[in-house]
């Protein structure tokens, strides 16, 4: 029997232990392979208008993935090696040299790595086509391109994972040399001592998380804390306090809470509560670091995917906020304008809902009266008459009209953020044109515009009288605005108009922004989603094999319980409770962190993220639950396998 064949046999015998690890490794290889394939593939890039972006995005995602996977494999390997201390000790005792044992472990890791790599690439070749389809769908393309697997992607994946496998396998080899024979035999016999917990540190954990949350939820514009710490340092402070707080929370607060719960004799001395609570008390501290990493990863993943998904989800509403008209351009030349009008009116796919020609003014203004944050006092505005505003607002289906007199004005600010944008109402600015000055006072503020932001400057509505007065002093222009049906599918129409309208026309179309929004947010979801899944699979499998190790060392305890008359059903119940505790802690912490991060973000983005984020959290929790049930089952099987 050669060392190599023993290594092979060990893998086969230990397969149940390795299964989830193996599966997550294969999964990460599949995802990496897909990312790399997309990087090399040019069929998507040809379909997209923003091609170089996609390639570099996937390169970045692949790097993030590979760093994570390397850490995951490294951790799992040293974990497995440590777990087999006793076996290594036995080999040593039998006179096998450390060099040979090390070689055997090296072969084992290496074999597994190569096996996972082969399966991963094979699966990846099949699945990447399917993943690309998902990506195309997410980015809003109907057409399925002739995506093909490139040799470059295979070679890239193979080399990268081979290096990781080699390094981590060598790490296992090295670990053997650090073991001492006597330690190897006492490895499992180390007495577990009741962990100590300090109230002070428990309190500190809550304070730290509290500070992090409080800082994150401050209003950026007027928070004193942000102002003193600075915009760069504060996020770092939030990160450190929350992560440290989470760790202490798992490390100390849980122990304190469990100890406290023991005081209530009525509950604690009832059925198996006594077992469950004491088991958890002994185990939770050793798990604190893993749980913290999982909580932080969960929070990051959920926040990233939640953000991408909410961008995707709110794409239509945010694009229509910026582009209230389906199409809009400045009339630079009557011939081109009528040519464009013919194209739009005769379009087969679209009916024209309305067409309006507007007169606008462009004027500079002194805005020192607006108390803006860090902006120059000179700004160019587009002026719209009260009459035209009311007409267009009615055509766009808004049930609002303005009635302004004399020097009254209304600001149209679709990206208004309370606290950050200027307080318009009540303040005055001075318009200047041809040496004349005209002071206007804001009477009203609308948190939308009737004009497309891509074509005009910040827009102010002025009274009809004032508009007439200013017309002679300012630069005038004529604007064409259209509302059409199926504006989100106007690809060919947009292309055609782009072809004839000059740069100066400032052509803006709902479709153009909508499509690019779909493209970038779809791409983000795809990458974020798959990265998240890899994180989830890896962290899930880490909890899984940590729990199984504990199950193996708890076997004797459950045997005692069984002998003194505890039913298997009850054992299952207490196992389910304990494992639930371990799984729920990082999930709850992760979701809480994510909720805070996203509510800070949603304030910044001015949109409600509740629905997309709840969907993300739901999916995440569901996958997590599957891991939970698999773990409970395996745990239960180990501890009840007495005969």
């Amino acid at each position, binding site marked *: 029997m050669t060392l190599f064949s023993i290594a092979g046999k060990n893998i086969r015998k230990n397969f149940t232990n390795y299964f989830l690890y193996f599966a997550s490794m294969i999964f990460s290889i599949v995802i990496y392979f897909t990312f790399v394939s997309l990087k090399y593939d040019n069929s998507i890039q040809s379909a997209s208008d923003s091609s170089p972006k996609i390639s570099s995005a996937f390169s970045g995602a692949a790097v993030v993935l590979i760093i994570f996977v390397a850490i995951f494999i490294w951790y799992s390997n040293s974990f497995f090696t440590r777990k087999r201390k006793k076996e290594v000790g036995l080999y040593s005792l039998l006179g096998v040299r450390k060099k040979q044992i090390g070689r055997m472990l090296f072969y084992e890791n290496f074999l597994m790595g190569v096996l996972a790599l082969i399966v991963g690439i094979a699966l990846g070749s099949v699945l990447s086509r399917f993943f690309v389809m998902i990506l195309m769908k997410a980015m809003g393309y109907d057409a399925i391109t002739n995506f093909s697997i490139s040799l470059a992607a295979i070679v890239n994946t193979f080399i990268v994972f081979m290096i990781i496998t080699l390094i981590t396998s060598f790490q296992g080899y090295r670990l053997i040399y650090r073991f001492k024979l006597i330690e190897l035999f006492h490895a499992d016999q180390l007495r*577990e001592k009741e962990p100590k917990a300090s109230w002070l540190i428990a309190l500190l954990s809550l304070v730290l998380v509290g500070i992090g949350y409080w800082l994150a939820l401050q209003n950026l514009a007027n928070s004193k804390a942000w102002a003193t710490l600075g915009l760069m340092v504060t996020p770092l402070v939030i990160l450190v306090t929350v992560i440290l707080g989470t760790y202490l929370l798992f490390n100390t607060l849980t122990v304190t809470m469990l100890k406290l719960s023991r005081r209530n004799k009525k509950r604690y001395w009832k059925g198996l509560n006594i077992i469950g609570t*004491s088991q958890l008390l002994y185990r939770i501290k050793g798990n604190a670091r893993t749980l913290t990493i999982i909580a932080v990863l969960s929070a990051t993943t959920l926040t990233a995917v939640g953000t991408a998904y909410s961008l995707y989800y709110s794409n239509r509403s945010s694009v229509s906020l910026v582009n209230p008209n389906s199409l809009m351009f400045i009339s630079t030349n009557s011939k081109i304008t009528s040519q464009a009008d013919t194209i739009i009116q005769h379009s087969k796919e679209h009916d024209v809902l309305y067409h309006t020609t507007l007169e606008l003014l462009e004027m500079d203004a002194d805005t020192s009266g607006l108390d803006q944050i860090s902006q120059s006092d000179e700004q160019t505005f587009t002026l719209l008459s009260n009459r035209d505003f009311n007409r267009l607002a009615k055509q766009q289906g808004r049930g609002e009209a303005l009635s302004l007199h004399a020097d009254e004005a209304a600001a149209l600010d679709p990206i208004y953020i309370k606290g950050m944008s200027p307080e318009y109402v009540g303040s005055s600015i001075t318009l200047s044109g041809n040496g004349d000055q005209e002071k206007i006072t804001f009477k009203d503020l609308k948190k939308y515009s009737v004009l497309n932001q891509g074509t005009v400057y910040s827009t102010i509505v002025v009274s009809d009288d004032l508009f007439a007065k200013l017309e002679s002093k300012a630069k005038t222009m004529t604007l064409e605005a259209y509302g059409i049906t199926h504006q989100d599918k106007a690809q060919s129409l947009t292309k055609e108009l782009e072809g004839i309208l000059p740069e100066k026309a400032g052509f803006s179309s709902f479709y153009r922004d909508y499509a690019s929004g779909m493209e970038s947010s779809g791409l983000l979801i795809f990458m974020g989603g798959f990265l998240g899944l890899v994180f989830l699979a890896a962290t899930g499998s880490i909890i899984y094999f940590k729990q199984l190790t504990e199950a193996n060392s708890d076997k004797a305890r459950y045997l005692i319980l069984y002998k003194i*008359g505890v039913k298997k059903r009850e054992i299952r119940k207490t196992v389910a409770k304990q494992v639930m505790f371990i799984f729920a802690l990082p999930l709850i912490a992760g979701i809480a962190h994510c909720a805070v991060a996203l509510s800070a973000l949603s304030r910044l983005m001015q949109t409600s993220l509740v629905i997309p984020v709840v969907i993300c959290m739901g999916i995440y929790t569901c996958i997590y639950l599957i891991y939970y049930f698999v773990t409970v089952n395996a745990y239960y099987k180990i501890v009840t396998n007495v005969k």
Partner: protein
Amino acid sequence: MKTILQAINVNKTFGTKGNIYTALQHINLSIEEGEFVGIMGPSGAGKSTLLNIFSTIDTPTSGEITIDGQNIVTMNEEKLSDFRRNKLGFIFQDYNLLDTLTVKENILLPLALSKVPAAEIEVRVNEIADMFGIRPILDKYPYHISGGQKQRAAASRAIVANPSLILADEPTGALDSKSATSLLESLSTLNESNRSTIMMVTHDAYAASYCKRVIFINDGQLFKELHKQDLTRKEFFQQILEVLSSLGGGHHDAV
């Protein structure tokens, strides 16, 4: 007098066709309430198998076993668990205390499992701790106390729920002679004053001499039975040694 344990023609075989090993053969045995019975025999005689079957964690191949009026052979898994919890108390050679629980919590475990009210648990645990003289160590963890103390804690746990039958498996096996004597005296007192029924498996003649009756097993069969009656413990010990030497096992290892 009430019969606590009644075994009729119990057989136990291991293995499959062609390679059958008979561990127990035609075992007929009855234990009355208030008895202190020792089971002796050389290694491999079937002592542990018999104990496991009486403990309901193993099943006989054939035969009838009634404990406290209930037939344990026909019971299902669930009922057996309840049965073990309510009717049997166990003392093991390696104590089998849970190291994550204090001595007190270990002792009250059977009561907690049966959902006895906390106030009642408190009273009962103190009562028993006094009986075994372990009150001062109630709040200690198993790894802080000596082997003798551990075994007394385990014995306390065995009787805390007032079981019909206490099964002891080599309880002195891991103890030094002083702790062993102290434990055996405690069990003896328990048997005399509480009228607890105890069945103890041992290969130590000294431990067996504390029993009122000793049953010898050899090669899976009942071999001989000794009654203490009016003998002193020393005389009984000599009798046990004589039987053991006739068994040929040469069990002169403890005096």
